[in-house]
């Protein structure tokens, strides 16, 4: 099992490194002199020079990257060009918002998508099956931001007062307020994934239910409910796990636009705002975080897969 973890980790590390390289290159590709931007418009040339030396701007690019990377590992993500604060403290208050949004969206996806998919498979061609098929298509066609705009139109103009369509209330202030403000954005982010996950679960379940071992279990007298719950679900959910890893990317991506539309003070909204403020250190930092989270989540999914599927486990044990 350790061999499996090590193998996956060694695959992830170069990816993470390349992510950092790409992020750094984009940071340097941004317009403007980084030292100047950091020092501010009114800074004196000496200050600018000092910062330039600190960042290593006079040195070759790969040295600059190395300096930047070292800073990264010591927790220094740079300094915000617009506020002068360290990037970490600019990001910190935003993280809970986005994290909450993301988590709630994924939870919604799982508790709605999987049971719907199982139901659609067990009652194939029944009303739930047809509904999920139509629903999935609908939510592929209606992108999350279009849905978001419609919801704002709905709750902001036509049916005012039912649900808030703007802003955010921290949990510490009010749990009810917090949830009601996150509700609509989470629905927007979860709609598409629910469609995908439900259809995928359905396909996976049908595939498993058609296998010979399910028939053999029936022939041995194992009760149907037990077969569905244990054998079928267990095997059918594995591929769904992989899908969930990829859904994470979709959710992270969608958070940017949904937070913007609903006015949630999260990392996604900050990405947009910082870019227009030319606060590139913040922008690139957020970009990097997004990528890293995705890589880590998929790494976890891979490891889980390895734990769950004994064949995969054995494969890696033999190789290691």
């Amino acid at each position, binding site marked *: 099992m350790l061999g499996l973890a090590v193998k996956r980790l060694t695959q992830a590390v170069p990816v993470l490194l390349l992510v950092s390289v790409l992020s750094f290159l984009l940071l340097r590709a941004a317009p403007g002199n980084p030292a100047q931007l950091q020092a501010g418009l009114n800074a004196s040339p000496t200050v600018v020079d000092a910062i330039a030396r600190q960042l290593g701007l006079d040195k070759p690019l790969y040295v600059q990257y190395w300096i930047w990377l070292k800073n990264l590992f010591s927790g220094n993500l740079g300094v915000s060009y617009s506020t002068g604060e360290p990037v970490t403290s600019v990001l910190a208050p935003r993280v809970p918002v986005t994290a909450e949004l993301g988590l709630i969206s994924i939870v919604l996806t799982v508790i709605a998508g999987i049971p719907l998919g199982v139901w659609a498979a067990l009652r194939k061609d029944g009303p739930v099956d047809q509904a999920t098929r139509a629903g999935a298509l609908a939510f592929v066609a209606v992108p999350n931001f279009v849905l978001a705009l419609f919801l704002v139109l709905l709750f902001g103009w036509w049916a005012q007062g039912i649900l808030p369509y703007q802003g955010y209330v921290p949990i510490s202030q009010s749990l009810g307020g917090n949830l009601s403000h996150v509700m609509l954005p989470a629905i927007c982010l979860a709609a598409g994934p629910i469609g995908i996950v439900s259809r995928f679960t359905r396909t996976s379940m049908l595939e498993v239910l058609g296998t010979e*071992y399910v028939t053999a*279990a029936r022939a*041995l*007298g194992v009760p149907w409910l037990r077969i569905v719950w244990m054998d079928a679900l267990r095997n059918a959910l594995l591929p769904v796990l992989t899908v969930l890893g990829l859904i994470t990317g979709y959710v992270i991506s969608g958070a940017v636009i949904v937070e913007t539309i609903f006015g949630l003070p999260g990392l996604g909204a900050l990405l947009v705002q910082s870019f227009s403020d030319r606060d590139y250190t913040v922008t690139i930092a957020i970009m990097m975080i997004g990528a890293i989270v995705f890589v880590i989540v998929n790494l976890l999914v891979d490891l889980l897969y390895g734990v769950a599927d004994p*064949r995969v486990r*054995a494969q890696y044990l033999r190789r290691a």
Partner: protein
Amino acid sequence: MTDSDSTAARGPGIRTGEPLAEVTGLSVTFGNPHAPVPALREVSMRIDRGEAIAVVGESGSGKTTLLRSIAALVPRPFIRSGAVRFGNRDLLTLRERELATIRGREIGMVFQDPVNCFNPAFTIGYQLRRVFRLHRPEPAGGTDAEIGRALDRVGVDAAGRLARYPFEFSQGQLQRLMIAAACFAGRPTLLLADEPTTSLDVTTEAQILGMLRELRRDLGMALVLVTHNLALAAQLCDRVLVMYAGRIVEEARVADLFARPAHPYTRQLLRSLPVLPRQPGRLYSMPGDPASAADARRGCPFAPRCEALLGAVCADTEPGLLPTGVNGQLAACHRYDTAQAPTENLAGKAPA
């Protein structure tokens, strides 16, 4: 087609009285109303206690569907008509919950490809324990001991193996495990075997065959063996049913089938088996391709390939299973219709 005549005509050595199981007039059609795919047409068969029956036929003949129907594994909507009586109940009318108490306990089933019959995600131990606990809740010495005994009987060394996964076993071992589960988890009076040795190599096949023979003898189970291999049928069974295009076309005692095949299909089938020492000349092969039950034609389904056609009646009317007059042998051929062909009866003649 089972009537008291054929029961009496079964010949000596075959028990009469209440059958263990009986299939009457079973018709199965898959697909949907727009594109029906018939698999079985009005099939009837009778299984007596302790007897071994072989169901032979080529692909598409419906033999697997027949076997699965006996275990009521074919989804209800596909069953057009018919009944499967076991004990004093019609299995086709029972709910899945009730069927689960019969399957595995009174009826055991062994499948063709053992690798696919176990869930790859669970250990063998889990899968065996689950079945054993279902049907024998309080065995002496505990469930694992019971499983151990069963594995001994089938020749699998249980030591430490229960914690392994299916992919760690060979085909032969998995087949033995499946037989163990089918025969020992409950106390089956009927064992259904769907080509149990087809995916095994010849040596393993021989071992499994021997084992099945032993088990049958020791446990007194009836056996319905589906196979396309006539030799297998000869080794293991008392009676043979030949299927073609979803129908039973011949029924005979094993010895009779090989010595005096009655139906032209059987005769041609036996002719295509190469015999050693080889006679000079080309090997015989049957013309055409096997028909499936889906071919909707009037008359005898075998007519297009038959080398013993009687005449226009073969293309017009489908023959029923008729007694050939020898040892209770039945054949679905107009040649045994005393009204049709009084003199051209093939029965009693050795194959050409």
